[in-house]
Structure formats: C-alpha cells, structure tokens
C-alpha cells in the first residue's frame, strides 16, 4: 500500500512543481517599487473579467500596547469611515456603485484590505484606496459610533462565545510579555476608552507607503497600471519607519493552568505550548507535526480522544505562521460529564509516544500530501493568489518565499518531526485552560 502511494506521490510532486510555474512564477509576477517605499506586486490573469486588489500593512496585534489593545482592528474599521475627499460611508457606496465589494481583516501581524471588482472599476478603486491610506478623517462622531460596532463585535465573538473566551484567556496566560498576549479584538475596557488622538497617532505611524505592500491580480495590463499607480500613490510621503517590536517572551519554566467558570451547556479544554516563528528552521517540521496530530480522522489526537477513548466530540488547533514565536494549540470539545484531566493525560501520552518512537513514514507522507493540497487550493482564484502573495511578503518578508514552501516541507525527515516534538511539546511548557459550566445553571 505504501509503495503504491509513494509512486503516486512522486508523480504528483512532478506535476505540481510544473504547475505552480503556470499559476505564479518568478517571471509572471512583476515587482514595482515606488520611491516612497511602496512595494507593488502585479500578476495578470484573464480567467475572469475581474481584479483582486489587496493592500497589506505591517501592523496588527503585535504592534499594540496596553491601553491601545484592539486599535489596529479599530483602524481597519475606521478606514471605511471617510476622508476629506470621500465622506463617511462614501468608500463603500462608490465601490458598490461601480460593482465592487470588499472586506478587510486584522491579524496579529498584519492588516489586509481586500477589494474584488470588475476591471472597469480599477481606476476609481485605486483613487479611493490611495486616498484612505493617507487621509482617513477619524470624525469624532463616527469614531464613537464605530466604537459601538467594535464593542458589539467583541460581545458577539468573545463574551458570548465560550470557545473564544477560553482562547483569549489561554493566550493571555501562555504569553506573558510579548504583545501576542492581547487578543486582536482588544480588551473591552480599552475598546471603551481609546482616545482619538492616540488612535490617530498610531494610524500615522503605521499607515505609510513604506509600511505597505500592494498586490493586484487579475484582468489588467501591467504597462497601463504602473503609471496609474505612480499617479495615485507616488506623491504620498514615506513616514519614519515604525518602532521595532523588541519584547521577547521569557522562557516558560513550568506548567500553567487556568479555569473559567460560567453558564454553559458544555465544557471546554485547551492545551497550548510555545513554538517558533514562521521563519525559524524548525517551522516546516512543526507544520507536519501539526497535521500528523490534528488533521483528519486518521490523525493521532482524533483517534485517541474522539475515536478510541471517546472523551471528546472534536479536536483541532495547531500552529500559525507568525512573525514572532506563538503557540501550538490543542482545542478540544469534551463530552459532557467526562473528567477533563483525562484529556490532558491522553494528550500527553500521545505526545510522549511521538517523542519516544517518532512518526511513521506513512504519517509523514500523508502530512506532506496535505500540505501540497492546502498550498495549491487557493491558487484556483485570483483572490487566493493575491492573498498568498501578500501573506508571504508580510510573514517572510518576500513573496518569493512562495517557492520555498514545498521544497522546505519535502526536506523534512521523520526524525526532524520527532525532534521538534521533543523540543517544544514537553510538560513543563504547557498551559492548560478549562471552561467548566457553573453548577446549578446547566
């Protein structure tokens, strides 16, 4: 069985390597640098008569300080709320009138503005995007109204959502010093107390062409779009580069545990361990370990917790590609009435087994196949291509890191996977979080 699969796999690698070169290649991505530091990546694609226009800023939860937690995400909201040229709400009204739609997201390391529109709307969209990155108004009344929106978003996604409440508390317990301690949404008391001046200063610091990357993928002509980009973005002045994030997480010297008690029908369980940043040489092996432990019904932890011991309904989690070291997480939805400590014991048994005996060749190959499928799937759409290029640029500092993903994964051996398990997933490094339904209010 393994042999058959292995042959299939060798063929697949050959075909995939060839095809990455037809979707995104070093040659068909055009890079254009503006003198103010804005980096532009252009990829023409005529599959549909539309354009995906993505602007990434190197700012997120990672850059925030106490009192201003959540502010990167708040600014993402305020970017839709007007400039002297386009009044509050005008951006969305004009964009939708021209057939466009957009969204935005804020993460720990980046803020991305994602526009999808018919090619005919290109110049109008570019005019508005270039305008708002330099000239958002932060009108005091709109500021207050948008504060309410974000508070509602926090109530929806954290306070009335037990899983996310546990996420937030575990993250803040496992990470003491680094700004990843704070959730991206921010603490409610910060949300309710942000001052306009401080928010404006933060915006001026991080929203500058030299702190951004623009990605355009779709139905346009490179030779026509470059002068247009120069015209709309070229005069925006560069800013002083933002302060570097220097805080490092101190080494964890023993296990930590926390408990949340609140009204709930079902309990919650999480275990997390600190791991390396995306650019660290251990990261590809950690990615494979993540898949071996957590992906699919044949994964080690699904088999142990859900199938064999029947302690849980589901288990998920894993690692994230981040600029600074973050966490390897195991998020378990326990069955009602089971002893939560048993979940902790069983997870440790699974991890100890990998540390002692390693992973099988079949498991390693399975994980490599999964990485390849995951990697190629987003390339089906122009939006997926734009997003991939932007994230590579922010996390790895270079979109060409795209071409390293598969080779790095291919180079990982079973022994390397065992080594990273032994390095990171050890009992003294864990933080356990429990959500226990309050008695009498089930």
């Amino acid at each position: 069985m393994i042999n058959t699969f292995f042959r299939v796999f060798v063929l697949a690698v050959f075909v995939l390597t060839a095809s990455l070169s037809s979707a995104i290649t070093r040659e068909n991505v055009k890079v254009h640098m503006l003198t103010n530091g804005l980096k532009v990546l252009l990829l023409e694609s005529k599959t549909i008569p539309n354009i995906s226009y993505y602007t990434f800023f190197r700012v997120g939860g990672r850059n925030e300080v106490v009192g201003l937690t959540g502010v990167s995400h708040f600014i993402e909201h305020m970017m839709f709320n007007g400039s002297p040229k386009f009044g509050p709400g005008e951006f969305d009204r004009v964009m939708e009138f021209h057939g466009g739609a957009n969204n935005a997201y804020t993460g720990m390391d980046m803020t991305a503005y994602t526009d999808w529109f018919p090619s005919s709307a290109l110049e109008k969209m570019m005019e508005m995007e270039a305008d708002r990155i330099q000239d958002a108004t932060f009108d005091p009344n709109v500021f207050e109204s948008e504060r309410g929106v974000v508070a509602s978003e926090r109530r929806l996604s954290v306070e009335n959502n037990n899983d996310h409440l546990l996420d937030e508390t575990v993250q803040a317990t496992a990470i003491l010093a680094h700004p990843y301690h704070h959730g991206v949404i921010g603490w409610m008391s910060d949300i309710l107390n942000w001052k306009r001046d401080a928010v404006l200063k933060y915006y001026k610091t991080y929203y500058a062409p030299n702190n951004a990357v623009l990605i355009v993928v779709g139905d346009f002509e490179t030779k026509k779009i470059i002068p247009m980009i120069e015209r709309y973005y070229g005069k925006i002045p560069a800013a002083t580069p933002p302060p570097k994030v220097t805080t490092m997480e101190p080494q964890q010297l023993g296990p930590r545990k926390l408990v949340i008690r609140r009204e709930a029908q079902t309990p919650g369980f999480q275990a997390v361990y600190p791991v390396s940043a995306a650019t660290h040489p251990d990261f590809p092996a950690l990615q494979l370990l993540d898949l071996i432990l957590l992906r699919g019904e044949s994964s080690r932890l699904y088999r142990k917790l859900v199938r064999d011991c029947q302690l849980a309904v589901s288990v998920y989690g894993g690692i994230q590609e981040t600029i600074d070291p973050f966490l390897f997480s195991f998020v378990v939805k326990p069955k009602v009435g089971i002893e939560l400590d048993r979940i902790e014991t069983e997870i440790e048994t699974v991890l100890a087994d990998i540390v002692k005996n390693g992973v099988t060749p079949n498991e390693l190959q399975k994980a490599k196949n999964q990485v390849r499928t995951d990697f190629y799937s987003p390339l089906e759409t122009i939006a997926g291509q734009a997003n991939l290029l932007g994230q590579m640029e922010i996390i790895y500092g270079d979109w060409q890191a795209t071409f390293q993903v598969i080779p790095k994964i291919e180079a990982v051996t079973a022994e390397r996977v065992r080594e990273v398990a032994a390095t990171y997933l050890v009992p003294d490094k864990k933080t356990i979080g429990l959500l226990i339904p309050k008695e009498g209010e089930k």
Partner: protein
Amino acid sequence: MNRLSLIIIVALFFSCVQAWGSRTLPIPQTFSLKNGMKVYFLSDATLPMVAFRMVLPEAGSLTETQEGLASLTAELITKGTPEKSAEEIAAEIDFLGASLSFSAASEFLEVSGRSLSENFPALFQLAIASLTAPTFPQAELDKERNIRLERLKSIKDNPSSAVNFYFRKAYFGNHPLGAISLGNESALKGFQRQQVVDFYSSHYRPDSALLAVTGNISIRTLKSLLENRLSKWANPVQSLQPLRFIPIPLPAGKKCLLIDKSDASQAYFVLGVPGIKKADPETASSQVFNTLFGGRFTSWLNSELRIKRGLTYGARSSFQSWRNDGIFTISSYTKNDQIGEMLKIVFELIVKAKKDGFDQDEIISARNYILGQFPPTLEDMESKVRAYTELTFYGESFDYYDHLLSRVSSTDQSSARSLASRILPKEKYVLVVVGKADEILKRLEPFGIWEVKKISDPGFH
C-alpha cells in the same frame, strides 16, 4: 473546398456552439450511465486538481420519516464497506490529502470531493465504494449518535447560531423543513441500525442522480473510473416516485418567541416571512431588492443599524429558496438595552421600502453590484460542479445565469418596489429573539405578544 476553409468552418461552428451555450458558465460534456445517472464533465488543466459533486434527489432530509435520519445516514456512508473499516477509509482520504463529504441538504443528498489529479482515481473509487456498498457498522452508529447528542448541547452556548435553530422550529413547525439535521435528543437515542439501512436502500439510487466532474483529468480516465462500480450500481425495485413538496405553512399572525439566556450580553433576532421559490419569475427583482435592503454592506439595514448608529457589527436580510417555496429573513443583534430601538428601526425600514421603494441611483448601483460580483461565483472548480448539478436539479439550462443577469440589468424601480411590497411583512411574521429576558422583555412588547422559554429547556421548540 480547401482545407483551410474547412478548418475555419469547423472553428466557427465550435465558437457558435460556445456562444449559444452560455456566456457565464462553460458548457460541460454530458452523458448518461446505463443505470440512468447523468454525468457532466468539464476539462480544466489550469491546476493539477480535480473536483466532483454528486446530487441524489431522493436522499435529502425532506424525504426522511424521522428528524435527522437523512443526515445520520449520509454521515455513516463512509464508515465502512465490505473491504474497509471506517478507520481505513478515513486514513486513506487523509493520506491522499483529499476531501470527501456526504451531507444531506433539504432537497437532496450532496457528495463532494476534491484532490490532486494524481490522487483522484483513488479518491473517486473510495467514494463510489462507500456510496454503493456501505455496511453501517453498529459501533459507528453508536459513536455518531453520541457525537450528535453532544453537538446539540453545544449549539446553545452560542446564541448567534442558536437563534437560527429556534427560528427554524418556530417558523416551519412540523413541516419537514423544520427538521434539524443533527436530529433531536429522543430520536437520536432511539435510532436503530435497521432504520439507517432502510433509508439507504429506499432513497439512494442512481437513476435520478447527477454527477459533475471538473479539473485536470481526461474524459477517458473519467469514463474508465465510471465503468466499474458506479455504472453497475443497481436501482431499487421500487420505481422512482415524483418528489413531493408540502407547502410551507404561512404565518397566521405575529408569532413572537423569546428564548431566555440569562448570561447573554447581546440580544439576537431573526424575523421571517414567506419568500419566493427557486424558479420564481421575480428572482432577478428579488436579488436587486435584497441587495439594497439587506444584502450588502451599504444596504438599508446595515447602513441604519451599523454604519449610522453603531448598534451592531452586522445586519442583513436574505432569501432562502426551494423548488416550490421559500422564506425571507432579516437578522441582527445588539446590546440588551438597544434591542427595542433596533427592531423599531427595522420595522420603519420595512414600511419605507413598501411605501417609497428605491430611487433610480440605488437601482443602478444594485444592478452594477450584482453583475460585478458575479464572475468570481463561478471561478473555481467547486462552484462549477455545484452549478451543473443544481441547475439540472432545478430544471434550468446551463445558460440560466445569462438570462438571470440580463433580467437583473433590466430590473427597474417599479419591479423592485413591487417585490418589496410582495415580500415585506405587515401583520404576519415570525420573530424569534435569544437574549436575557429580564433586561429585554419589556423592550420587545411593542412588537407582539411574547412566549418566553428558557434556553435550558430541552430541544429548540
């Protein structure tokens, strides 16, 4: 006739076929298997991947006799064949880096899968082996039963999704569309293996099935995959019956239900009224109307509730349509002390839309928006196989979207307004709120007479 002109004529012929086919959706090759299954195939070599989707019209939840049976059967299909155990099947799918799912929608069962091209034969064979010869091991039924019982409980910890389950029950009552796919506690506890076996034997059949495949695979490879097990899959003895659809009961008055969740800091509502069926002649107007009323960021609902007042993170409306009927819903959420204000604004917007309709600039904007956002909806492989199977299921041709978009282009103020008047409620609706009763009940009084239940009460009705 020289050779060149022949080539030109042939080329012209093909380009015409393309033009007569569809501007929006590439036309697939079509053929049938001996057992009646229809197959749609589109070759696409852009990426080394293949996706497929199969629709079985008899095996959706509308045909089930007990709540949750269709979904449970679908889930158990991949939990054992004569050759492989559930664990072996899962391990093989995972190894291929592939995905495969069987899930019961209301009107049909859908099977979907995707993988790298090289792994597609293995994935497809596994899917077909599961579909045609499931063994339904008792132990797998018991495990799935337990998982579902747990999932039912955890829904209630998240009011934003719980409100939809309560709404479903309140609106549809005992109509089959009120069924929750996870089932209910007593039905789940009582399910016998034989019920699953019987549901499978009588509802899973090839003669009404539709299969679409697209991606980097040749038709020859596909046909050789279909030749073995799938084309030999026999139909049940009982002949195919026409699908029945019981009309959805209309709201009799203002039906208001409050679910008390004593620790909720926000209140979540869903308001529902009758909508339109799939092939309704006013589908294009309904899209223009909904885009403006609650279907996009600058819609009336989101503008008034989020953009202008900051009451919520989002407010929206949508149509859900089935072959013979449909519903229209409005939903949002806000802090407990603002729910009264929020609902008052919602009802004011309803009155305004019925009375004044939309201005000409709004109509143009909605038309541009629908047309501009359409191409990405058919961009990837999944969306194409979905389009092939569903258009066929609903009796539409593959140029359906061309006609729909052209009707969208000609929707005007009067057709959007007449649709608004037809759909938006006056005195008859179903309104469900999940929130903290102590703090919100008095704010809800202007909107009807409220029945109050606790979230800890069993079930969703």
